[in-house]
């Protein structure tokens, strides 16, 4: 986004060490809840959910000695705002090489806000088959008061109550210079 450079960081809520610990905890919670890594299938939502899902997958492999399945969802074609954004967002590839039938899918995204991205991801997932269960893991939950759909996360790195004017940025070394989570705001005119 063109104006992202002008955003002002109000506060930093996680540095790289805290992010690492949050990811480790998410991994342990996922295996604890599902009694191990059997049938586990982690699916990252593009863009920033993908490296997060990869890191959780690595961590689960360390914990359990088995590597869960891993996939990628691009939800662009399932968005509900295509006619209102006035432009066609760039389409990237969905990569679900392994059959999701009967698997425990853990969707992974960086931030849970309105819930609309997750709705799109669920719709897309169902077009690929019938998983046994679908769970949601996010690094940051902005609080349920922002939700526009009845969706909540099963595994949460950190709950950060925010105002609508604020923007949460999860910065990852795959895309950004730093590894951190910060609250940003547009400078007042």
């Amino acid at each position: 986004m063109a104006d992202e450079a002008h955003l002002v960081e109000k506060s930093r809520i996680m540095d790289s060490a805290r992010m690492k610990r949050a990811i480790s905890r998410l991994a342990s919670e996922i295996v604890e809840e599902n009694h191990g890594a059997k049938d586990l299938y982690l699916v990252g939502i593009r863009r920033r959910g993908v490296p997060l899902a990869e890191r959780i997958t690595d961590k689960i492999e360390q914990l359990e000695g088995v590597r869960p399945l891993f996939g990628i969802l691009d939800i662009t074609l399932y968005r509900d705002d295509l006619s209102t954004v006035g432009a066609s967002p760039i389409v990237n590839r969905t990569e679900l090489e392994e059959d999701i039938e009967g698997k425990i899918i853990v969707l992974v995204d960086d931030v849970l806000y309105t819930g609309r991205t997750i709705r799109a991801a669920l719709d897309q997932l169902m077009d690929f088959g019938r998983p046994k269960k679908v769970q949601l893991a996010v690094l940051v939950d902005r609080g349920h008061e922002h939700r526009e759909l009845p969706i909540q996360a099963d595994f949460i790195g950190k709950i950060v109550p925010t105002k609508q004017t604020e923007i949460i940025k999860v910065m990852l070394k795959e895309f950004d210079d730093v590894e951190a989570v910060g609250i940003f705001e547009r400078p007042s005119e």
Partner: protein
Amino acid sequence: MEKPYRRRDLLGIRDLTAAEINGILDTAENFREINAREIKKVPTLRGKTVINLFFENSTRTRTSFELAAKRLSADAVNISVSSSSVTKGETILDTALNLDAMQPDCIVVRHSSAGVPHQLAKVSKAAIVNAGDGANEHPTQALLDAMTIREHKKKIKGLDVAIVGDILHSRVARSNIHLLTKLGAKVRVAGPGTLVPGDFQHLVDKGLEVCPHVEDAILGADVVMILRIQRERQDSAYFPTLREYSIHYGLTNERLDLAKKDAIVLHPGPMNRGIEISSDVADSSRSLILDQVKYGVAVRMAVLYLSTGGSMVSA
């Protein structure tokens, strides 16, 4: 950053920049995965209407556009000339205005006269996609050819591409020449003197070469693109007989041996086996004719998505 694709109408390759062409190809690349799914449908264009307005016969292209629209959940309506009001005396413009009044989001048009899609684009509120206009352009064919080449050669820049056959009447050749030279390939065309137009001089400095003999064009080529001999034009005496054409210009294994060892063969279809291409070549592993058809659906999905969505921005 390069200027992304921001067009509504796709009228020809001639108007596009290399960045815009690559933008469409990259988008199409990502639509391929949908066609490999068990449920080959996404909800993206739900509620949008696509009209396929074909004034000329076509099975492959029309089916391809129809499937592309349906796999994106758009409603597709097909109108062919035999069932249209044009046979009752209505002008093309009136037909278009009437269709427009039904508020479609996109009209895919094929016509035997060059420029018809451009005329419709001026009056229609819908996005116009050219599915072939006379001997002018067939942009989605060139895009799917480029996609096939990219898939097998991993690049287009610097490749030697031979285009052989009836260049004069071929919109496929024109769109391909524009696309391939814009992306940095060297294009060599060859065919009977009567079927190679003389007005290609302006393209020569952009990387086009007109070869006197078919062998010169094929020699060392990475890609050999064979054009269909339009048998319906046989009365016009561009060449004496089909048999003679086949002897002098048909792609046989012997001629193909002049190309690079890993050369690939493309044909836009429908093929005349034993005339412009021998069955040996058509059925060999070097022939990618069915891949072209496969990628055609993804390319048309990308074009419909970009045309009805407005423009392309990063999410």
